[in-house]
């Protein structure tokens, strides 16, 4: 592998197909963004539900989180890709990737959102209610905006995991960066070094800025605002 990375001939063969990798990288980025949007939407809805006063929404959210967090993403992707066609739901690999990854990380983000909401003192909901805010209005205008500051670091952590987990598409044969790299390397000239190096660098370029920014933000928050830092520490302990 190292020899291949150092060999210009291998790089020339690899670079002749660069557009394939660029296109696959585009698929990975697109799936990441779409899955993130889905995960955030699900996370906010189920996170709010799990702090509800009513038993039903709380239990529905609980069941969603437990079922998803305790089974592998690969299994969920297989259910979408191999089981759903039997009941007439056909999806391409890329849409399976978006739904499976989005629903999987939605459960994790729901837990982050729940912990964030619970870190806001109860008095705030009561004060908002006394001013005539409805439940949804209270969440939308009072509680959720305040949680954002605290839950941003664990949220960014989930984003990084989400990007890495889009590689699950490779297991159902989609053309994301991971599968394209593996396909290209194992077929034909069996050149492994350059494609895997580029694949790793591309994933790294997506994830590293995010995770570094998340860590910096967290350090700054802990230094600047000791109350928020303490809440964040509690949330992280609870989420672990």
């Amino acid at each position, binding site marked *: 592998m190292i020899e291949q990375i150092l060999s210009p001939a291998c790089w020339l063969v690899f670079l002749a197909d660069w557009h394939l990798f660029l296109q696959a990288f585009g698929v990975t980025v697109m799936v990441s963004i779409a899955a993130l949007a889905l995960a955030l939407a699900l996370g906010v809805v189920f996170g709010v539900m799990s702090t509800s006063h009513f038993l039903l929404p709380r239990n529905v959210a609980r069941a969603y989180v437990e079922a998803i*967090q*305790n089974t592998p993403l690969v299994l969920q992707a*297989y259910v979408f890709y*191999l089981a759903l066609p039997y009941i007439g739901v056909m999806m391409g690999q890329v849409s399976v990737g978006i739904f499976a990854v989005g629903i999987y990380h939605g459960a994790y983000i729901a837990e982050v959102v729940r912990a964030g909401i619970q870190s806001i003192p109860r008095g705030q909901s009561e004060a908002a209610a006394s001013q005539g805010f409805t439940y949804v209005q209270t969440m939308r205008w009072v509680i959720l905006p305040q949680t954002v500051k605290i839950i941003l670091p664990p949220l960014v952590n989930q984003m990084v995991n989400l990007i*890495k987990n889009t590689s699950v598409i490779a297991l159902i044969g989609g053309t994301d960066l991971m599968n394209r790299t593996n396909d290209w390397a194992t077929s034909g000239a069996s050149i*492994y070094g350059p494609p895997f190096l580029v694949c790793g660098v591309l*994933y790294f370029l997506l994830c590293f800025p995010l995770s570094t920014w998340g860590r910096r933000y967290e350090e700054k928050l802990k230094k600047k605002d000791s109350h928020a830092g303490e809440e964040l520490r509690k949330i992280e302990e609870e989420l*672990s």
Partner: protein
Amino acid sequence: MIEVITRTFTPEILTYLLGGAWLVIELSVVIVICSIFFGLILALLRSYDKFILGRLAGVYIEIFRNTPNLMWVLICYVYAPLPTAFLRCAFAFVLFTSATIAEIIRGGLNSIPRGQFEAASSQGFSFVQTLIYIILPQCFQNIVPTLLSQVITVVKDTSFLSMVAVAELMFRSRNALALLPRYTGQTVGIAQVAVIFGFAALIYFIINFSLSCIVRHMHKRRHAQARQATARA
């Protein structure tokens, strides 16, 4: 449905699937033990060595935390200098998981007050003695819940190995679907798929849910202790 279950889970299929589950457990145990060992070394280097080794540990951790697990599985499956597929895949997971565990251990080390080092050295403890007798026991006590959640992640992520044809539970579930017509004479429909995948999901769920219950119990006990401590003070 009951008829499908009794017809699907013949002794052969059942032992085949449970064998996959056992492989998942074996893999996870090997991976977690090795990763804690290497993760500890990485964390100690990154925390206490300010020169080249500490930097290298930092670079290692950043690389593996920001690239997908599956990529290392695919690379190691071909290139790791180990004899069996099992070991090569476990190696890939150890590379990856030790970086994550190193960060967990580092968090535990950071949570221990600096004064403990000074107190220990004033009592004549050397640096290594301080680590072994004073710092690490407290550190591990603090991070056990986080480590257990990492175990859950490892158990789930072993399913990525079905891509390289390691016969763990997920791979065998897919394979069982292909074998079903031959062994049981059933045509594969939604009922059969649901039963097989449901069985796999149940096994993963039992393993992970019991682990997460332990984690939750530990958190609860810790909160109760903290509350008692503040009440006393």
